[in-house]
């Protein structure tokens, strides 16, 4: 069984983000990393391979040139190969466009199981799993906390508010995993060295047979009008106990409609 893992290169959470003139995130100016939530996807795929359920793990990312850093990181954790969809025309692509590209690439990769994160840590839309599965016409199991393969089906556990449900889906399928699925491994130096030798294929839109007009800002269904930094957080109120702390605390909560 072949697994494809979707991985996204996202800006470091602690870095200062900048936006380009067209209001899209300037991904070249900021240090990036493999999305933390996608590390869980990589981990789950590797565990399936270690359990003998998978024979090959390939990664897929769509992103700027530096996205290979995320690819190398994933390959250092394990896995066999990777595909990087890289094309200038992709700048400004929205969720629908991204799913179009990823689905096209996945078709070429011929995976039996697609594993991805529950959401990216930058845009956090959490829509791509469903979108990609829809485009591929395969079952989507989202927000899985545990995963196993049982004779050509995938069994996933999903945590809901009051129960843990077990979902079975036939393969091929797409599964998105949560951050509760199990601590992602820390790549060893051995892994980092080995990753340098693993093949990374670059595909352009032309390779995937996608018209440039269907992606990028031109192909986007939405338009970003303005980007504003969020206002700095105001300092909290400190209540020092002078005998009446409880009353004042209650007043504060009431004034803020929290009581």
């Amino acid at each position, binding site marked *: 069984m072949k697994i494809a893992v979707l991985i996204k290169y996202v800006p*470091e*959470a*602690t*870095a*200062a983000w900048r936006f380009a003139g067209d209001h899209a995130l300037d991904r070249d100016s900021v240090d990036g*990393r493999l999305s933390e939530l996608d590390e869980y996807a990589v981990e789950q795929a590797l565990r399936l391979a270690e359990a003998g359920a998978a024979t090959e793990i390939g990664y897929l990312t769509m992103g700027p040139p530096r996205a290979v850093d995320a690819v190398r990181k994933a390959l250092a954790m394990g896995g066999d190969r990777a595909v990087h969809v890289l094309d200038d025309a992709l700048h400004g692509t929205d969720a629908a466009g991204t799913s179009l590209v990823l689905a096209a690439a996945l078709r070429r990769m011929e995976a039996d199981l697609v594993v991805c994160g529950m959401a990216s840590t930058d845009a956090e839309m959490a829509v791509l799993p469903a979108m990609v599965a829809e485009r591929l016409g395969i079952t989507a199991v989202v927000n899985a906390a545990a995963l196993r393969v049982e004779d050509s089906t995938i069994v996933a556990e999903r945590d809901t508010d009051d129960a843990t449900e077990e979902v079975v889906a036939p393969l091929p399928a797409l599964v998105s995993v949560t951050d509760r699925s199990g*601590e992602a*491994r*820390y*790549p*060893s*130096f*051995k*892994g*980092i*060295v080995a990753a340098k030798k693993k093949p990374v294929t670059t595909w352009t839109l032309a390779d995937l047979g996608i018209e440039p007009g269907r992606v990028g800002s031109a192909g986007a269904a939405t338009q970003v009008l303005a980007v504003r930094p969020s206002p700095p957080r105001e300092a909290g109120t400190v209540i020092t106990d002078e005998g009446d702390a409880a009353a004042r605390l209650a007043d504060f909560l009431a004034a803020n409609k929290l009581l």
Partner: protein
Amino acid sequence: MVLRIVLGLLMTAVAFAVAGRRLAMLYRIGRAAQPVEPGRTRGVPARLRAELTEVLGQRKLLTWTVPGVAHVLAFWGFLVLALTIVEGYGALFQRDFHLPLIGTQPWLGFLEDLFTVATLVSVLVFAAIRVRHSPAREGRRSRFFGSHLDAAWLVLFMIFNVVWSLLLYRGAQINTGNFPYASGAFASEAVARLIHPLGAGANDVIETAGLLLAIGIILLFLVLVVHSKHLHIFTAVANVGFGRRPRALGALLPVYSGGKPVDFEDPGEDDRIGRSSIEDFTWKGMLDFATCTECGRCQSQCPAWNTGKPLSPKTLIMGLRDHALAAAPYLLAEDKSKVDALAAAAAQTPLVGTEGVVHPDVLWSCTTCGACVEQCPVDIEHIDHIVDMRRYQVLMESEFPPEAGVLLRNLEHAGDPWGRGAGARTEWTDGLDFPVRTLDGERIPDDVEYLFWVGCAGAFDDRAQRTSRAVAELLHTAGVEFAVLGSGETCTGDPARRIGNELLFQQLAAQNVQTLNGAGVRRIVATCAHCFNTLANEYPQLGGHYEVLHHTQLLSRLVADGRLVPVTPVGATITYHDPCYLGRHNRVFTPPREILGTLPGTRLAEPQRTRETSFCCGAGGARMWLDETIGTRINETRTDELLAAEPDVVAAACPYCVDMLADGVALRQQQGRTGAHVTVTDVAEVLLRSVREPAANDHRRA
């Protein structure tokens, strides 16, 4: 006479064969080990000085008075007694043999007897110490806990035998008229008087029998020595000679494989990273293992051992030695299939693992505090071995306590252990009433005297931020121009290196060296003892050469120069805690005490363990970021030691110590075991209180 010669030489031949076989085997183990990194013979004067002070002068042993003096007696006793061995062999061939030139001088006879008696005294003292501090009585507290006790007693018994047999034959020699010394040899003379009444014939027999007995015992002793911890008699000189100078503290060595530094960008195919098995150690490592005397001085000071953790630096080294010996037949065999099963099994035991030679709990308990290295009379380099084993675990196996993952990821992604990121690096300056010059990538202006290295704790930790502000304010008051890197600073890499992630250390350090060199920085002042150590001692390995001061050094200078004038009485008894990485690792003991000593209205109360023997706070070696679940907590133990000096203020000079001790004191206050008034703070903050006018203190206490 013929009998004497034949028997004497026969015994010698047998003993030399047995001992020689053992020594040859030990030598082959050393040869099979990795080559050592370069520099082990560099700096000959310092090496000779070490031989003089540590071997001949027994400096480290003498820091423990009673056992130290006893060892001096035994050590010098053996040097002098070596002469009697030569005399003994001479007497095999010629009954009245004497050493050439000085061989009949009464003073030499006296000296020999003096040291014979001294050796006897030392044996008695050692025996008393072993009884008094026996593990049976003291349990884990005993420094001999875990040592090979039977072998040690046997050695003492043998030394005792050496002494009496020597005196016996020398006494008989006097009575038969073959003794080289007419006078001086008082002890031999006493024995002679004792056995004189037995008659001439008997004394003749005693002389020969005693001589053969004495030689036999010495030879037996030789065989025993090469098979036991007493091997140190031969190896200690070499171990001290090839040791890291001035000491195996301060900097950690880069990763070497086959004696060459490993290039992490482009590692060689066969590079061995860290130690995965016993053969990965260098011959100097093997020499370390062979030299351990099992004295337990290291163990007695180890914070991990003292708080009930499974790590003892002594048993760690002993374990590695025992393992090397057990695996040796396999490692040295040409045809591995013929090796006996036990040795093969030993060779295949993993070095680190729950079923391995070293348990992971042992490996991860070390705070790299250096107490063991400081204590070890034969200069064993424990920390280097521990970190080398960690390096293999982290770099090659990704095996480490899970909590460390958070630390490593934060360092990697945010450049600091807290995961706050470069953007927040100057938040600590909020509340200062003067601007702090921030380079943010610019070159350092000519009028700036010092780059103030704030450090991650200094930038992000609440308590340490106060220290950063105090130092900034003091420098500002003294008119010292300083600047900070701001967002250009990242973690020095100390925790990454000490947890064994050399790759990450190299990346962080290279980035900082590039920033510092790019900014033209020459002089740095740091508040964190770990940053201080890394910047001063480790960055030169990466091409970063700076004059690095700890803030207590700079501040004490400013006080001495009158640029800072403490005026306001502090009115407190202060107990100063020596941070390991400032004190032991870098020998900065005096400046913080000088600062505290000049403050009006203070009294310094030293804790029991202080300066070189200071006890770790528990945070070093990246332990700050690991859970402490085994035994009692190190910081609480140290807190209690400091509180025993009854201070009002516990002062330290490292943000991690301050944090650890503040937690400890807070806990004891909660438990009602110490007064609510006791505070824990950095030396700089106490100084600032005294430099400020009283009114200013009230105003700005917050």
